[in-house]
């Protein structure tokens, strides 16, 4: 299974400003001072090997959208419809032109704007030969998607979409099969509630758990999350804030921290953690610092366990399981 991250930013799409790009170029030029590159490929190789990711790249700014790709014969499986969905749609149209089935299964964590805002720009929704199944733990998912395409918000109404669109509402504790995967849900603490998903198929397990707050007063309940994450090959987890922020200034906003994500994964015996739903106010340097701190924390509290591999999700990241 290949996991593609199309959008990894939380709350609000963001874009790099010109001065941020200039800072990266200046930093790269200074590090490369005195070197000669025969061509762009050699320069790119230098950038990847000698520069930090925050210098030669960017974590991106599209809101949550993650694809689980089980192969060219499979239906598309996509978690959330943030602004990253637009680019996924472009890619999907190209792949369908090469013969991929035009069937899409979406799994919505919840209905807040940053998790559904990409749907009006999802080109396959205009494909009369496409089938779109939208899975959710919220019974009002259809209302949320129709409402954001009302005339006051968007020029193309939901009724004008040509694809066959179905909605499926699911309950935690009632696993189901979709797109060849076994899927289960867990209820999470967030404004109006959110749902995490566990996907199992082809001998691999992926957990998608975003917009989930793990409050100090509810630590007993974390045993349920440790079980839900149990043995996962990849856990994609909300790590929007530091723990200090999450329990003080940002408490009750419904988000988690990098250190809680590491602890849950350790207790669950998960193999890999993807830091996800990055704070929109963070620069690339801020996110990279948080990533390095997470690596260090994992090492400090590992206590004889197998190493939990930690990756920092960015728009365009692909993780092969």
């Amino acid at each position: 299974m290949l996991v593609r991250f199309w959008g990894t930013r939380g709350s609000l799409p963001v874009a790099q400003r010109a001065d941020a790009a200039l800072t990266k170029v200046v930093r790269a030029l200074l590090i490369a001072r005195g070197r000669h590159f025969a061509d762009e490929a050699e320069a790119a190789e230098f950038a990847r090997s000698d520069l930090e990711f925050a210098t030669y790249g960017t974590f991106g700014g599209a809101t949550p959208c993650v694809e689980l790709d089980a192969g060219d014969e499979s239906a598309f499986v996509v978690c959330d419809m943030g602004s990253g969905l637009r680019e996924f749609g472009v890619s999907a149209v190209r792949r369908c032109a090469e013969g991929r089935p035009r069937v899409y299964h979406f799994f919505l964590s919840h209905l807040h704007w940053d998790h559904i805002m990409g749907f009006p720009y999802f080109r396959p929704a205009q494909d009369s030969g496409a089938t779109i199944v939208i899975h959710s733990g919220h019974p009002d998912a259809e209302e949320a998607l129709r409402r954001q395409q009302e005339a006051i918000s968007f020029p193309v109404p939901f009724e004008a979409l040509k694809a066959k669109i179905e909605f499926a509402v699911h309950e935690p504790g009632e696993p189901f099969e979709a797109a060849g995967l076994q899927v289960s849900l867990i209820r999470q603490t967030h404004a109006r509630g959110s749902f995490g998903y566990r996907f199992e198929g082809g001998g691999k397990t992926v957990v998608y758990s975003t917009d989930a707050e793990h409050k100090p007063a509810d630590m007993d309940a974390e045993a349920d999350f440790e079980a839900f994450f149990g043995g996962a090959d990849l856990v994609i987890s909300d790590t929007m804030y530091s723990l200090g922020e999450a329990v003080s200034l940002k408490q009750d906003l419904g988000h988690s921290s990098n250190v809680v994500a590491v602890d849950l994964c350790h207790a669950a015996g998960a193999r890999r953690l993807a830091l996800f739903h990055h704070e929109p106010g963070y620069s690339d340097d801020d996110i990279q610092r948080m990533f390095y701190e997470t690596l260090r924390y994992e090492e400090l509290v590992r206590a004889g366990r197998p190493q939990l591999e930690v990756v920092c999700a960015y728009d365009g990241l692909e993780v092969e399981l």
Partner: protein
Amino acid sequence: MEWRLRNDEGRLVAAPTGRVDEESWKEFSANLNAAVRDAVAASVPLVIDLSGLEYMTSKGLRALTLAKNEARGAVQIRLAAPNATMRRILSISRYDMLFPVVDSVDSGD
């Protein structure tokens, strides 16, 4: 994890030893909240001597938050003498911005 508590020159000093992790956080939290109530009753600050602590995971850190909530601002809770690992964990979690962290039990703010 082991826990010791002593009155010491106008303050209460709590000294956990070992690790605070998913196995021991409940015991740590219960002892800590009881110590907070004792400190509030005596109107003295509570110093948590971290020198014997190997490390603390997020559950231990959040137990500190529960203790701070229990204190409701009536007494100060200070973290003292963390080893290098605990100091790094306090920094990574930004708990060093939520609690005063001092080099030794005898240090002031």
